[in-house]
């Protein structure tokens, strides 16, 4: 059947399907533009990550365009074939409907995704990703995700068409033609010459039977090498001439500042800012259990699993080197007594953890574990005057830790 006539015979139904396909292609750039607008802030567009992402978006878009073109071509071709059969058999327009529904189906989630993306990004403004705001990051990821979805849908569609075609072709069984293009791409990429022609490239060198060919350098190899040299120049330029990338010391400064901000932010919100002046003895079982866990992990090495004392003093008797009140114990753990071998734990344990472990230590008082170490320090009695001793110990700790 001549190829021109079928075109006129396209039914309204297919036109609809094709329009949706076209709308789909248009929708993607729109989504892209929406996403691109946000990272387009002057600060983040310099970010190589953003540039990379934008490039990925563009490449994906291009792929979508090409693939959509192929799918539409396949669809119309397939439709034409169906038409032929329709004329022969009269009826069976179901396939067209199926096609339309399928197109609609994969188009629908795309639009849904489009609507979702801004919604999710709006919620998560608090966190950020490198130099990117969370909104921009999610917008970019969203767009890329949508593009990937569209690609997948298109691929799926194409496969459906091809599978049908293949089924028919299997009767003719010329599968060899399908494999051919893959080989050519690989060969083209490397500028391969057919093995049969290699005699022309023989250089005439011969070493113990080994001959040498004069194949050209694979182009991707050569240009890759040039690109790596370019990378080197840009890298050195950025770090040592334009100073637009941070050297190791500066990187640390940036990380520390960020960490401080995050920590301050967190502490503001949480009830975590206990210190040696405000700490109270905790008796809640959960707190004590947590304290015991911390103790086993960190303190048992020197003070024994049951606090009986090994290198460090016995923590279960009545004698204390640096005061036995909850505030004293908290202080000792927090700042340590480095000259006596007790290290500071304030960088390892959170204030709440220190309170827990201090309360746990108080809770094992008088437990008389086996192999207890002999008493060290002064007799300490829990009474009303403990506020006094506490503050005295606090002062001493402050002095030594300056």
């Amino acid at each position, binding site marked *: 059947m001549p190829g021109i006539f079928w075109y006129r015979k396209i039914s309204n139904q297919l036109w609809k399907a094709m329009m949706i396909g076209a709308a789909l292609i248009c929708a993607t750039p729109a989504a892209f533009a929406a996403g691109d607008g946000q990272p387009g802030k002057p600060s983040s567009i310099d970010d190589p990550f953003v540039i990379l992402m934008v490039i990925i978006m563009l490449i994906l878009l291009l792929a979508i365009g090409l693939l959509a073109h192929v799918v539409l071509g396949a669809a119309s071709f397939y439709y034409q074939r169906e038409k032929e059969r329709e004329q022969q058999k009269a009826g069976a327009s179901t396939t067209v409907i199926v096609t339309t529904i399928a197109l609609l189906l994969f188009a629908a989630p795309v639009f849904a995704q489009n609507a979702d993306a801004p919604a999710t990004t709006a919620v998560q403004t608090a966190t950020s990703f490198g130099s990117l705001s969370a909104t921009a990051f999610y917008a970019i990821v969203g767009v890329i995700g949508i593009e990937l979805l569209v690609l997948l849908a298109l691929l799926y569609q194409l496969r459906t068409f091809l599978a049908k075609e293949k089924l028919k072709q299997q009767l003719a069984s010329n599968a060899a033609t399908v494999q051919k293009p893959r080989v050519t791409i690989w060969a083209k990429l490397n500028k391969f010459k057919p093995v049969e022609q290699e005699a022309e490239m023989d250089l005439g060198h011969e070493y113990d039977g080994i001959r040498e060919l004069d194949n050209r350098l694979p182009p991707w*190899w050569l240009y890759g090498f040039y690109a790596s040299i370019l990378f080197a120049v840009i890298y050195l330029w950025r770090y040592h001439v334009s100073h637009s990338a941070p050297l190791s010391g500066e990187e640390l400064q940036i990380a520390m500042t960020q960490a401080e901000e995050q920590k301050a932010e967190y502490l503001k919100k949480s009830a975590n800012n206990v210190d040696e002046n405000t700490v109270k003895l905790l008796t809640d079982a959960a707190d004590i259990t947590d304290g015991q866990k911390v103790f086993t992990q960190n303190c048992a090495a020197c003070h024994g699993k049951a606090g009986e004392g090994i290198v460090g003093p016995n923590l279960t008797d009545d004698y204390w080197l640096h005061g036995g009140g909850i505030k004293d114990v908290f202080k000792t753990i927090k700042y340590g007594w480095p000259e006596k071998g007790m290290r500071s734990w304030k960088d390892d344990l959170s204030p709440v953890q220190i309170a827990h472990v201090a309360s746990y230590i108080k809770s094992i008082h008088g437990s008389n574990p086996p192999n207890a170490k002999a008493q060290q320090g002064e007799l300490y009695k829990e009474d009303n005057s403990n506020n006094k001793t506490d503050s005295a110990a606090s002062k001493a700790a402050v002095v030594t830790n300056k």
Partner: protein
Amino acid sequence: MQVEQFHYDNKIVKQFAYATALWGIVGMVAGLWVAIQFYAPGAALNFAPTTFGRLRPVHTNAVIFAFVGNCIFTGVYYSLQRLCKARMFSDKLSKIHFWGWQSIIVAAAITLLLGYTTGKEYAELEWPIDIAITLVWVVFGINLFGTIIKRRERHLYVAIWFYIATWVTVALLHIVNSFEIPVSLFKSYSWYAGVQDALVQWWYGHNAVAFFLTTPILGLMYYFLPKAANRPVYSYRLSIIHFWALIFIYIWAGPHHLLYTALPDWAQSLGTVFSIMLLLPSWGGMLNGLFTLRGAWDKVREEPVLKFFVVAVTCYGMATFEGPMMSLKNVNAISHFTDWTIAHVHIGGLGWNGFMAFGMLYWLIPRMWGTSLHSKKLATNHFWLGTIGIVIYAVPLYWAGFTQAQMWKTFTEEGQLKFQFLETVTHIIPMYITRSIGGSLYLIGAFLMVFNLYKTIKKGKFIANEAAEAAPLEKHAAPVKEHWHRWIEKKPMTLLVFSLIVVAIGGAVEMVPTFLVKSNIPTIASVQPYTPLELQGRDIYVREGCYTCHSQMIRPFRDEVARYGEYSKAGEFVYDHPFQWGSKRTGPDLAREGGKYPDSWHYNHMMDPRIMSPGSIMPSYSWLLDNKIDTASTPAKIRAMQKLGVPYPAGYDQVANKDLLTQANGIRLSLKMDKIETPKDAEIVALISYLQRLGKDIKATAKQ
């Protein structure tokens, strides 16, 4: 012209081939042994020579210099004769070379197990052995060039370019890095200190990989792969460009082992960019190998030799891709000091070097015995065991490395480190177990090979002298129009000199400024030389190979500063002969260990680490409690340090031992307070004094 009759010397090839198989097995067994110690510390047997710190250098030296070294010599002695159409220059030199190299290996194994080490990775051997290596290397060089000069083939094949570059560069690396000042017969101090020592060491260490594990093996690949596949080499011009680019660029990349350390930033950046530029030249070798197989892939299906070569070359490609990626700072921040690096080197070691060696032996032995391989099926089984072994070895370690790095870097919301160091170790122990299973499979494969080759040898008859004939070179060849590069292929000495120049550039540009420009290593006034006791303690630290598991280099990362303290500064290491920055953190960093724990903690911890840190995988060092400090060596050590520019007062060597005993007594008393009785001259006392000194000097400035 009259054709000359001559014989190839196969006997020397046979000897080296036997040595390859033997040392391969020995090196791999040592490797498996240390791998088991990661999850079963008892496997150290509580015996000094079999602890990880001493056994690990035995493993690395055995596989690099004994296994791969002998593999290189096997291949070179076989291929060189045939590529030059000449017998080796001198059978006597061949013999000296062979026995010299084997005695070096034996001496190395014994001294390393006894704790004689310079403390510099892959260059641990002490000065008398260093000298022996130099001499044997010269013998090899004379034999190599002697053969080349009396060749009957006008042009040098690409394999020989690689042999020449290998010879000259290894000589350069070995001599420069081994500059050391002897204290006694088996003790010396590195000529360089701190940052400079680190730079030289990793210039050497990286290029030992380049010029011992890569270029000679590429040379072997260029001979054995086309021979086994019976295919022409894919591209001559690719050979040219990748050869020159590879040897020029490789030498620069050493500082990528020192990213984020106290090495000046500019040197680190050079290391990074040259590593990136190294990727494609490395791949040039892979491509030339794989594309040579075009039209022969059907043979790969049947021929185990080619199977080994294909996986070897592919592993080479993977490792040389991964290497440059790990040289990027953001990747290195994760991979360095973790098992990722170990996985990476074993892709190269097991895959590239091991499989090239196996393939070569499977090809060579039947030929030299005039027979066919005993069992192709067995060889194929070896191939699959080995391949699966590599996967089971590497994948868990990648996982372990990545996991541990993430755990190190995790903070709680309160801003505290989430994991204690020990937790990050115990977490990855399952991966260590799996790794050793992969290694075992690989080792079983190697045993299969030995059996297969033994059967083959039994079946055949050895051809000690293989007859060959060729016309001698004409004195004056008529000029012909040819490729420009053919010119240098006719001139081995010119090729030698050019290679030397090309490889010398990178090292010189990085080292000269680091040595001469003061601003590269800013001095810190409060950093003082070690006391005699600390110096003795440091030597014990080096002797026990503590650096194989503990780094002394706090990188400028938030987590490391939080975990270990202020990041390390270049000026802190000016008296460190040798530097002890380490390359792997199986245990925590020790750069600021001083003052972190009481003396008694260290005492108990050395006696049995699990008393103080339940779950620790560190071996016990109970002999340190009994051994006596070698005080007789103190004066010589002080004098050696003085020669290296460490500012001890004149004549201090005579009174040093008095200071030593005073300080030791202090530690004895502090231990006594914690109810530990120890003689003040026990080695543990010296080691404690050293550990308690680490990283403290800089704090003195802070107080002032």
